[in-house]
């Protein structure tokens, strides 16, 4: 088999997952897109395991590990999303702006020399 087929499949799947992670607002949808990302990686691992005639099963075993970790990640991620949903009644990532920097305009007197001196004196 031509090596490009599985590898390109993995790459495209990765790009799709990337798009999903960035474009989805619902936290669970983002988690799904992350699953796509992980699967793209595992697909590549399996492909390389075959292409490079991997004697120690590294690719496949890493895939095994990644699937396991993905399961744990999904469980934890969903637990977090449910917690967020329980507290804020929404799983919309766009609404989770608690860490946003509040923007207030810089006032003119804040920059005057007198004020600077006062700040220094303080």
């Amino acid at each position: 088999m031509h090596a490009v087929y599985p590898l390109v499949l993995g790459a495209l799947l990765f790009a799709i997952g990337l798009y999903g992670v960035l474009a989805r607002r619902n936290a669970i949808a983002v988690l799904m897109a992350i699953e796509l990302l992980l699967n793209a990686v595992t697909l590549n691992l399996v492909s390389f395991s075959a292409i490079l005639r991997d004697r120690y099963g590294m690719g496949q075993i890493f895939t095994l590990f990644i699937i396991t970790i993905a399961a744990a990640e999904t469980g934890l991620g969903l637990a977090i999303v449910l917690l967020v949903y329980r507290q804020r009644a929404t799983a919309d990532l766009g609404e989770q702006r608690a860490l946003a920097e509040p923007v207030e305009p810089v006032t003119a007197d804040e920059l005057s020399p007198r004020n600077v001196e006062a700040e220094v004196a303080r």
Partner: protein
Amino acid sequence: MNLLALIASLLPALGAAVTAAGGRDLRHVKFWSTAPVGAALLLTLLVAIDHGSGGASVHTYSIGTAGAFHVEIGTRVTGLSAIIAVLVAGVAICVQVFSTTYLGGEPRYPSYAALISLFTAAMLTVVYSADLVVLLVGWEIMGACSYFLIGHYWEKPEARPASIKAFLMTKAGDVPFLFGIIALGVQAHSFQINAVLAATGQDRLHHPAWIAFLLLCGVLGKSAQFPLHSWLPDAMAGPTPISALIHAATMVAAGIYVVALLYPVFALCQAVLIVMAIIAAITMTGAALCAFAQTDIKKILAYSTVSQLAYMLGGLAVGGRSQAIYLLLVHGAFKALLFLAAGVVIHRVGSNELSAMGGLRYRMPVAYTTMTIGLLALAGIPPFSGFFGKEAVLGAAYNATGEFAAPGRIVLIFGLITAGLTAAYSLRLWLGVFHGPFPDAPHEHEATVEAPQPELIPLILLAVPAALLGIVVLFGSGFSNYLGGWYGEAGAAGADLWPGGLTTLLSLLFVLGFGGLVFLAWRRDEGADPARALLGPVRPALVNGFYFDRLIDAAVVRPTRAAARLVGFLDANVIDAYVRGSGTGARGLGTVLRRLQTGSVQFYLTCLFLGVVIMAAVYAYVGTVS
């Protein structure tokens, strides 16, 4: 001998340390302020007697190499240094003893006494030092001590600026002085005084005139010569004993001493000598005139000191090294006496003003007697010591030949005039303080109000040399021989200190003439100030020291202030504009960047991955191309 000299310089320092360490504890201050200085006096006397006319005795301790120079610290005892050291220690012990009662009750007496001791130690260091660097250290410690001592009464409004002025003006001279010393050391390849003098003798100095000028600046500052003289009258804001110490023996004497010490350097160039002579002439005449006009008796004495120092400088300018040192010596004696006596008077009267005094001769017999002796010496009345000192300088000026001839004329003419002026202001002071009516006389017929003994004893002790130091001239060239030659070597052909006939006659004529004028003016109205009548319209100018301070204010202070304002303006409006601009810019940028901080994780992630993709693409592209 050198070891004794070293101990003599260190003892007052030890006393100062112990006194200062005691803090405000007054119990042992009197002992620790007087005993080490007294011991130092004994040691300096021993050194002076032991030295004889033995030339220069140098003993140094090597303490390693600093840069290109091998640093050796030690003492150098010559006739000059031995005799000046005796003067320093003698005046210092008198001042310390005097101070025990004069200032003994004050809470800040310990620090005062410690500073006096330190001052003495610094001056002894200058005198005994074997190399110029250590000399400079002592020189600067004196500057610092004078700053603190003049500002001793820092609660008085005139004392603070006076101390700052003294510090700044002497410092203005010290900077060129430092360069001069460095130039000397570099050209002689050593800072050892002996080596420097040897280099001078072998004509190894380049541009000696410049070096001499640089050194002269320091001397002018320390010895209060025109144009750096005005700090000395202002320094009267300090306690009176300090004035005695500064004026008689330490600070101002240091300048003259350094010129005498490095005399070969100065004598190498006639231009320097002429400048010295001109400065001396201006200073001596102007200061004498100012002294005549002053009403504050301490200021009279201060201007008198400036005038007399100019005499010494003039003596040095005409080649009369021995004569100048002799005058320094006798001046030290009688000026210390005068200041201490004036201190006694001021303390009793409670005012510095001449107008507040009068008719004190019966009430303060000891002060009267001793001050009379001092004033006679100052005025140059034979046979008191001042007469011989003055005549020695005038004689040297009269007899000057060769490159000294031209300075000699200048010094002679102005010296004679100044002699008369000196007699005039001395007489005015004497009459004003001790004769005539007491201004407002509630105590006119009271018994004596003498000062306590510790104040009187130094007066009497100082009166002896003030009256009798003229005896030195009986030894002919013995004093000069003791001082040694220019290079500090022994057995050089010494100058004769015996007064010359013509100059004596002329100076006595001047003295009698000016003195008579003053006396006649005083006789007309015993309560009035003779200066007022004699000087007329120029008096205010003289009282204010020829408005010299205003000149300095206009020439130096205002331009400096203007420059400072300009710099301040530039700092506040140009440099700070950049600083504030950067602050504003950072804030503005921060505001913009804060808008990026939306809290949306996906927005961050998008930016992150965008960057990653771009980097990966660029990397892949570069990897493909290469």
